[in-house]
C-alpha cells in the first residue's frame, strides 16, 4: 500500500502526522469532485425546471423545457446543423489523419520532422486565430455559385484543423503497436499496399480508429468559436446558438440544450466502450 508508505515515512520523519495527511487527502478529494460536478449538476437540475427564469430554489419540476426545445425550429435546426457538421468533420479528419499517420509509420519520408510540424501545428492554435484566418482566406470565395463562406463544408474543414492532428497523433501511436510482421506477411502472401492497408492494418487498429473518429466528432460537436466566425443564420450550430442566447437572455432551454449535447457525447463514449469490449473478446481469449 503506497499510502501506508507515505504515512509511515511521515511518522518516522517526525513531520506530518498520518491523520493530518489523511484529512488533507479527503478534503482535496471532496473539493475536486465537487468542483468538477458543480456545473454539470446545476445544468441537469435546471433543465427540469418549470419556471421561465433561472433562479434557485426550484419550486416546480417538469419536462416543459424539453418539449420547448423540441418544438423550437431554431434549436432543432441548430442541433441538426451541429450533427451534420460533426459527421462531416469526422469523415474528413479521420480519413486524412489515419492515412497520414500510416504514411508516417510505414514509409521513409523526406523532411519528416517538418511535415510532422505542419500537420500538428493547427492543434495548438487558438480557435479565434483559426476562425479569423479561414474567414479572411475564404471569405469571398465562390465556387460555381457555391458560397464557401458560411457553408457547413467550410466549417467542417475548419474543425478538421483541430480534429485531424488529433486523429493523426492518436493513430500514429496506435500504428506503432502493430506487429510489423503481420504487414510483411500480408505483402508476402500477395497483398498489395492498399489491399494490405484495408484488409490487415485497418481491422487490427479498429479500436484506435473508432476512438479517434469519435473524438473528432466530439470536438466538432462542442466547438463554437470557429463556428461563430464561419456560420450564418442558416448554418449556425447548437453551441453558437447557445452562446448567442446566453448573451441576450438565459432560459432553462439552454440547460436542455447543454444536456442534449452532453447526451450525444456520451452516446459516442458508449459506442467506443462497446466496440472495445467486442474487440477484446475476439482477440484476447
Amino acid at each position: 500500500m503506497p499510502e501506508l508508505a507515505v504515512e509511515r515515512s511521515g511518522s518516522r520523519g517526525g513531520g506530518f502526522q498520518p491523520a493530518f495527511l489523511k484529512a488533507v487527502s479527503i478534503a482535496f478529494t471532496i473539493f475536486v469532485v465537487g468542483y468538477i460536478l458543480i456545473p454539470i449538476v446545476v445544468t441537469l437540475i435546471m433543465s427540469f425546471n418549470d419556471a421561465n427564469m433561472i433562479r434557485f430554489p426550484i419550486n416546480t419540476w417538469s419536462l416543459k423545457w424539453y418539449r420547448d426545445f423540441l418544438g423550437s425550429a431554431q434549436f432543432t435546426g441548430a442541433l441538426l446543423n451541429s450533427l451534420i457538421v460533426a459527421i462531416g468533420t469526422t469523415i474528413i479528419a479521420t480519413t486524412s489523419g489515419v492515412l497520414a499517420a500510416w504514411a508516417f509509420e510505414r514509409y521513409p519520408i523526406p523532411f519528416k520532422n517538418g511535415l510532422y510540424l505542419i500537420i500538428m501545428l493547427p492543434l495548438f492554435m487558438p480557435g479565434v486565430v483559426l476562425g479569423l484566418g479561414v474567414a479572411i482566406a475564404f471569405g469571398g470565395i465562390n465556387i460555381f455559385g457555391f458560397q464557401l463562406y458560411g457553408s457547413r463544408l467550410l466549417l467542417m474543414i475548419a474543425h478538421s484543423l483541430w480534429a485531424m492532428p488529433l486523429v493523426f497523433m492518436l493513430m500514429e501511436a496506435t500504428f506503432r503497436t502493430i506487429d510489423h510482421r503481420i504487414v510483411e506477411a500480408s505483402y508476402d502472401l500477395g497483398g498489395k499496399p492498399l489491399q494490405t492497408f484495408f484488409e490487415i492494418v485497418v481491422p487490427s487498429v479498429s479500436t484506435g480508429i473508432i476512438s479517434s473518429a469519435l473524438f473528432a466528432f466530439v470536438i466538432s460537436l462542442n466547438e463554437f468559436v470557429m463556428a461563430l466566425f464561419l456560420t450564418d443564420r442558416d448554418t449556425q450550430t447548437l453551441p453558437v446558438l447557445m452562446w448567442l442566447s446566453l448573451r441576450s437572455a438565459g432560459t432553462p432551454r439552454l440547460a436542455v440544450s447543454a444536456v442534449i449535447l452532453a447526451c450525444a457525447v456520451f452516446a459516442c463514449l458508449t459506442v467506443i466502450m462497446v466496440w472495445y469490449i467486442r474487440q477484446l473478446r475476439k482477440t484476447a481469449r
Partner: protein
Amino acid sequence: MTTAPALELDHIRRTYGLVTAVDDVSLTVAKGEFLTLLGPSGSGKTSTLRLIGGFERPDSGEIRINGRRVDHLPPYARDTATIFQTGALFPHKTVAENVVYGLKMHKIDKAESEKRVKDALAMVRLTGFEQRYPAQLSGGQKQRVALARSMALRPAILLFDEPLSALDLSLRLQLRAEIKRLHDELGFSAIYVTHDQSEAMAMSSRVAVMNKGHIVQIDKPDIIFHEPKSEFVFTFIGESCCLPVTIRNGEVRDKSGEPVDLKLARPPAAGEWRLYVRPSRVVMGEAAAAAENRIAANVAFAEFLGDVYRYHFKSGALELFCDYGGPERFQPGDRCVVGWDSAHMSVFQ
C-alpha cells in the same frame, strides 16, 4: 514447367551503413530441394532470407525465381511465401480466413480456394479449427496455420524464418518431423533458416553454413559434418574438443611445452596449430588401447547426462572431454588413457 532452378542467388550483397550483412552470396536451390541456411546470430542468414522474400533490396547482385529476375520486385509480386518466426497470423481473422487470405489476394476462384484451404488444413492436421481465432490456438498450432497459409499458395519456394525457435523442445521435435514429412510428400522447394544445427541436419537436402555474411560451406548434411572445410564449420557443427599445440621440427608440444604423442596423417608445417576431435570419436578405458593416438589424462570432473557420463580430462595444458557409457566409474583425479584415430582429427591453423 521451366527447367530453371527454383531459386538462384547471384553475388548478392546487402550493407546496412558500415555493416555488410550479406556479402557476395551465391547459391542455387533446385526444384524440390530443401536447403538450410545455418549460422550463428548475425551471420546474415535471416538477411539473406529477407532479400529473397523481397522485404529488403540487395545493393547488388541478382535474384531469380524459376529463372525470372525478381530482385526489383516488392514481396507481393514475388512467388515466395514466408513462414515467420512468430507465425505472424492475422489476429482479427479466423484460421480459415488466414489461410484463404493469400488465395484471395491472388484472385484464385472460390471453389478452388475452398478446396486448397481444406487440403492445407488437413495437411497440417488442423481440420476442424477453421473458425478459431489465433488467440485461441497454442504456439504449435499457430505455427501450423502459418505453414498451411503459405503452402496453400503453392509458391515457387517456401521461406522458413526460424519457425520453430519460439517453441519448446518437444513441440519443436514434433513439428520438425512434420515439416520433413510434408516435404517428402509434396516435394516443395524451400529455404530454411535456423541456428539449430540438429534441425538443419535432420531436415535438409543441403546445408549452407553462413558466417559473417558469407556462405562458408554448402553441401549435404553428412559431408558438412564429416568433412568440414574450415575450423568455423567444424566447431559450429557438432561438439568438438580443441587441442592447441605447437609443432616444431615435426614434434608436437602443448602450450606448456610438454611433448604430446600424436600421429598426424600429414604432419603440418611448423607453427601454432589447433587440433580438433569430436568427443563422440574419443574413446576411453579398454577401447583406448587400440586407438592410434593415446594420451594419459586425469579426470577433472564428470557430468551425468542420463545414458552416459561425460568425463572432462586434463593432460598437461590440454583439455578434452568424451562421453562414456561403459560400466566403469571414474572419480575426479583418476588417471586413465583416452584415445582416437587419426582419421577423426582435423588440424587448423
